[in-house]
């Protein structure tokens, strides 16, 4: 599903969705089952070069996000009338200017900041609420679990993207509204994933052993369950981050994103410009593509790395 908001909403849902397909969910190139049964020892698969390239790209993004204000960039909202609209690459504007004379490079860097901040804070809300409830629910079980699971199921069934569009267009789409709404709508998705992951751990023998030794629930949950669920949590966090960044882009496509520079805004502004020249959406499109590839690949690799059982399939 993607698409966006389809992608978008498509996006969030799709990225997260791909991760929800459970045991059948194929890993990327890594999980290839050997045609001839190989040695049965489980070895943690290596991360590989591409993994570190992806990490490198994410590090660049993080750097841009933190230091955007300190870099020697022009004001991303400043119109340089001397350069003219849709100007090509020049010494003064390394990536040219956009349809209202603003510097593309500077908007790209500030856009990274917008995308990453919305993604990180939205994910924090989703993980904070959905992750905590999912872990508790799977550990406590009983009535609490049934009631919570049913209400989360209703939340999943409700077409989130419709609510997102309605709420953002009636309330206005400030950065905080977007973060809050997207974060809240990922809660049921994350809840379901984390609950399933915790459930698989909470029924293991070492948890029973810990309980029988008289450990308190708090200790079992944080000392025995959490460390074993953590790798999956990290992977889901990364997938969610990618999903929210993609949804923000799709919202921008509908004119429902922030007013400042963001990749989604740059792509949709250029795309809606009459007589658009394709190279002008290249910068933000490539940046977004690389970011989504990096996040999905890194998340997938981390999941495979810490869960070698699944690699064997």
């Amino acid at each position, binding site marked *: *599903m993607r698409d966006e908001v*389809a992608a978008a909403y498509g996006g969030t849902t799709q990225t997260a969705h791909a991760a929800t397909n459970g045991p059948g969910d194929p890993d990327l190139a890594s999980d*290839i089952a050997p045609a001839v049964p190989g040695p049965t020892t489980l070895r943690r698969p290596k991360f590989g070069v591409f993994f570190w390239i992806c990490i490198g790209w994410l590090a660049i993004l993080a750097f841009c996000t933190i230091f955007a204000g300190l870099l020697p960039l022009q004001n991303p909202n400043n119109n340089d009338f001397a350069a003219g609209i849709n100007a090509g690459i020049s010494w003064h504007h390394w990536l040219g200017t956009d349809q209202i004379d603003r510097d593309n490079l500077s908007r790209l860097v500030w856009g990274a900041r917008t995308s990453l901040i919305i993604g990180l804070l939205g994910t924090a809300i989703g993980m904070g609420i959905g992750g905590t409830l999912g872990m508790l629910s799977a550990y406590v079980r009983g009535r609490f679990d049934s009631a919570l699971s049913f209400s989360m199921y209703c939340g999943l069934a409700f077409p989130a993207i419709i609510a997102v569009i*309605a709420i953002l*267009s009636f309330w206005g789409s400030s950065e905080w509204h977007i973060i809050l709404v997207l974060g809240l709508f990922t809660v049921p998705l994350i809840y379901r994933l984390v609950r399933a992951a915790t459930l698989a751990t909470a029924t293991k023998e070492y948890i029973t052993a810990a309980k029988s030794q008289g450990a308190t629930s708090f200790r079992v949950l944080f000392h025995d369950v959490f460390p074993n669920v953590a790798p999956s949590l990290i992977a889901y966090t990364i997938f969610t981050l990618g999903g929210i960044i993609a949804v923000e882009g799709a919202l921008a496509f509908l004119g429902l994103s922030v007013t400042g520079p963001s990749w*989604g805004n740059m792509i949709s502004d250029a795309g809606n410009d009459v007589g658009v020249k394709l190279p002008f959406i290249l910068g933000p499109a490539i940046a977004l*593509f690389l970011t*989504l590839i990096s996040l999905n690949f890194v998340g997938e690799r981390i999941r495979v790395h810490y869960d070698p059982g699944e690699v064997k399939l």
Partner: protein
Amino acid sequence: MARYLLKRVAALVGIIWIISVLCFLLMHMLPGDPSQSVLGFSWTPASGRIWDQQHGFTGSLIHQYWYWLQRVLEGNLGLSSSGQTVDSIIGGSFKIDLELVLYSQILSFLFAIPLAVYAARRPGGALDSSATAGTFAFYCLPAFILVIWLEQLLTVTYHVFPGPSTTAFPTGGGFFNELMTNLHVMFLPSLILAIGTTAVYYRLLRSEMAQTLQEEFITVARSKGLSNRRILWRHALRPSSITLLTSTGNNVALLITGLFIVEVKFALPGVDGDLINAVRAKDYVLVQGIALVTAIVVVVVNFAIDIITTFVDPRIARA
């Protein structure tokens, strides 16, 4: 089995009821006044009150919900601010969504199934690695980028497909011509939708197939001397396709609410396009109606897929 079905139907009714409450609350949560958006310039506090009374917007929230629910159960979703009934608007545009979903899923299967079947034949081989990497790349390319790109490339630069101004359902020219024109117009939007799901289906089916091909009955089939093609398509594909079926259900449900990027870009008069217009026009009743109808469709599709999978694999019902 009967008990399982009964339980599922009860849950379905419960979920639909909760969704109706959510849709109702969603509209009441939004700021503004429906009477104002309908009456426009002729709105005065007095005329607004009369409108509210006529359309059940007075009294407590529970009272209003009850009034609305009664109308909905009669099949009356209310009057949009354009004067048309919400049912007729949704009824008119739903067929576009239906066609987009079906068309894109057929395209998706046409790409994903052969690719996955042949890739699984030699895991780690050239076809497998390149197809896995390729679908992964497409999976990371959001539809709103594809839509701008492909539209520009295939309708503006090269006139392979008609642009957004073309009507989806031309009249005249006989049934066959009309069908071909329609399929031609709808191809590009469907292709863009299909690209995302193809990656998901490919990954699922490839991994299932690779597993199935190591089962003993495949070795038996091989030792009987059956051709590779027959083993792949007749023996291995069917047991591998259950996850694909479940995933298709999820994706269809997601797509129904995920069409608006192509509907907006290609100016297709579907439900998601209606929603965007309704939101822009602050048409509360229409937003509410669309939310309700699509939510119910999503739930029912998922329900149907669940039931179908229990017939394909009856162990699920006993679990």
